[in-house]
């Protein structure tokens, strides 16, 4: 088999486009919630600082949302172009779930996004709040359906394969939607979105603290973000643990890969560092804590942990990627816990604004949530290999039969170049928006942010001429 055959290229292409895409919804799901919160605060307290926070963050939201829309559109067609056998076989199950996502979520988001962004002087404040609410609600609904579809591919239920057609016939939609791993995955991903966003907002706020700009407004957003981190970081660790137990039950081989555990054994060690070797079926340079994996996975130091050798070689996922992604995710989760706790301590001491090292840590952690989310998805998706539908349909049997490696290589190259280009542009405008910062308060507001900003007119943003 050649090193880069059509299957590997199609997998690389999907991995790249879906990883690129997930960065943007992760931020928009969380930011929609944040915007809803500050608009509610503005309506409740009439404090215009909240309104200015809204106007600032909604620009970042809009920029990010646009990226999510265009990169998501690609995915809805890629199932057909590159994975037509998967579409033919699983379409009857996955199709309606994605269809419901479009019908209930996408239209709601898109319909009210216009009102949310451009409708300030066209609808009243309460109606505008409703538009923000519906956009936020839409992003959550969207996660509901797409994670249901993804979870069904991990833990299929409620459908059987028709022996004549060779494709799925759904039997029980409730069992399909609420398949065994769905609620864990939904909770884990929604929390990841909010946590990632909270860390991001804390980082942007820390930038203003460190540079001494917009500090009055940044104090507000940092406070909101750090309360969120303090609650969400431990919550996420708890949900992650529960999700891990669920994976152990339904996808034991994935867990074996996460732990780089080759032999089924009682009292399995927790491996902190290792270079797993799939050929020799062992780890190099292993550093481990005795009985640690058994304790974490079975909540019993002598519990039995599944091993990779439980299944034949060809049924195992790539171990190294799963093992290391898992460690990156967990390590960053601990970092978020540290930020939450340190933030609470600094708040108690009254040094949130002045603590240099804390603010530097927040600034440096800005991308950390995204990296953790991606790492988590690598564990879930690479760990599902060599299947697209776990235990049923192999990835090699899911690919479009006609498409050649050359064609996929061509489009993959174009994707790399195009996505690289637009991502650079996105970062450029994101940094530009953050550097300019929130607009100055209108004259009747309290003068809490006196710095003049070149090019920004109070309350009105015009397209550059």
């Amino acid at each position: 088999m050649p090193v880069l055959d059509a299957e590997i290229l199609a997998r690389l292409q999907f991995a790249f486009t879906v990883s690129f895409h997930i960065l943007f919804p992760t931020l928009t799901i969380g930011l929609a919630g944040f915007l809803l919160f500050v608009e509610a605060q503005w309506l409740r307290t009439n404090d215009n600082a909240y309104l200015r926070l809204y106007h600032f963050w909604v620009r970042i939201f809009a920029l990010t949302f646009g990226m999510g829309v265009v990169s998501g559109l690609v995915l809805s067609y890629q199932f057909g172009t590159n994975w037509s056998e998967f579409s033919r076989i699983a379409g009857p199950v996955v199709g309606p779930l994605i269809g419901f996502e479009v019908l209930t979520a996408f239209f709601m988001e898109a319909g009210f996004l216009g009102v949310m962004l451009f409708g300030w002087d066209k609808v009243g404040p309460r109606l505008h709040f409703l538009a923000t609410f519906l956009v936020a609600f839409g992003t959550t609904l969207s996660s509901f359906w797409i994670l249901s579809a993804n979870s069904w591919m991990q833990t299929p239920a409620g459908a059987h394969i028709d022996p004549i057609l060779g494709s799925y016939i759904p039997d029980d939609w409730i069992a399909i939607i609420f398949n065994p791993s769905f609620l864990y995955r939904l909770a884990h991903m929604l929390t990841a979105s909010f946590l990632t966003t909270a860390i991001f907002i804390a980082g942007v706020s820390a930038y203003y603290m460190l540079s001494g700009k917009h500090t009055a407004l940044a104090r507000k957003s940092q406070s909101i973000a750090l309360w969120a981190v303090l609650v969400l970081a431990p919550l996420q660790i708890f949900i992650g643990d529960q999700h891990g137990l669920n994976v152990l039950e339904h996808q034991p081989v994935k867990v074996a890969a996460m732990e780089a555990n080759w032999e089924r054994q009682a009292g399995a060690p927790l491996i902190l560092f290792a270079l797993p070797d799939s050929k020799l079926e062992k780890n190099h340079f292993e550093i481990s804590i005795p009985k640690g994996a058994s304790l974490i996975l079975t909540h019993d130091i002598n519990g039995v942990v599944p091993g990779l050798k439980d299944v034949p070689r060809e049924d195992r996922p790539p171990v190294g990627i799963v093992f290391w992604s898992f460690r990156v995710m967990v390590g960053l989760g601990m970092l978020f816990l540290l930020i939450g706790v340190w933030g609470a301590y600094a708040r108690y001491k009254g040094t949130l604004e002045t603590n240099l090292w804390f603010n530097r840590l927040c600034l440096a952690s800005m991308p950390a949530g995204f990296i953790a989310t991606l790492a988590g998805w690598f564990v879930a998706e690479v760990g599902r290999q060599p299947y697209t539908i776990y235990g049923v349909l192999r990835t090699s049997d899911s690919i479009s039969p006609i498409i050649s490696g050359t064609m996929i290589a061509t489009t993959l190259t174009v994707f790399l170049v195009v996505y690289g280009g637009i991502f650079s542009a996105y970062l450029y405008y994101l940094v530009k928006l953050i550097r300019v910062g929130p607009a100055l308060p209108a004259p009747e507001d309290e003068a809490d942010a006196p710095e003049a900003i070149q090019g920004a007119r109070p309350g009105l943003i015009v397209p550059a001429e």
Partner: protein
Amino acid sequence: MDLALIAAGVIAAGILIYIVLDGFDLGVGILFPFAPDDRSRNVMMNSVAPVWDGNETWLILGGGGLLVFFPIAYSTVLPAFYFPVMLLLFALIFRGIAFEFRHSAHTSQYLWDRAFFGGSLVATFSQGLLVGGLIQGVTIVDHRFAGGMFDWFSPFSVLTGLGLVAGYGLLGATWINMKSEGETQAWSRRAAIVMGGAVLIAMLAVSVMTPLIRPAIAERWFGGVNALILAPVPLMTALNAALLFYGLFTNRERLPFFSAIGLFVWGYIGIGVTMYPNIVPPALTIWEAAAPRSSMIFALIGVAITLPMILGYTWYAYSVFKGKASDHGGYAKH
């Protein structure tokens, strides 16, 4: 109850709504560099900025809908049109991000103006290639695509590609005519006359060529009483064309836009009766391509509940932004 037929109706309606809605905003992009000045370009951009995202969602519904109701059509058409589909997606990426990036840009605005124009043009042309390629037919064996990667490429599909560019251009021009004033509006009327003429020529050429590439279509169009039953299609098309030019020459604001939509609706019906009962010509019927009954019922219940709501709030979103678009616009309250 014939679920496949109902589902085909739902998808056909969804695609028609897509063509009309995204048609005018893609058309605005196609005409973008030809606008008289930057002020006009701002008006044009602002007239579609609040709604383009919703318009494009109908395309996701088209793709998603095929996967839901006709998985075999989805899994054969997309590999068959691999390159045009990829071209469409890349083009939509460029024009989609142009909305936000242009707004944030300063010195690089010209770059996003070009992305908006180029993306709109290429997206439209590749959709036209798809339409032409589909009418020509797709080779399917055993429910899998079995043709070549460039089967879709022919003089006919290039013609439908160019025809759709003119068609979306017409929708865009008549939309701008409705949403703008003064110099921009006068320019958009002239653009609509040019585009309208091009559309009529393209429609005529496609109508002449279609029965020639597949004799079965000639039989469908002209055989027996069919010629009589189908007579309203060309007649209504002609009537809408007359209304379009009447509206343009008498400086009406709404009539040209709605007549242009009428032209599209009747052209679409024409393609529909040509293809029926196939979902992928020449041989895959809607019943053969249909999803299992349990998938159909589940999804149709969802459509029955959500589609009226979607139409309701889409109408609401449009009504919030009714009236003339302004040349400055933004997110903040003013």
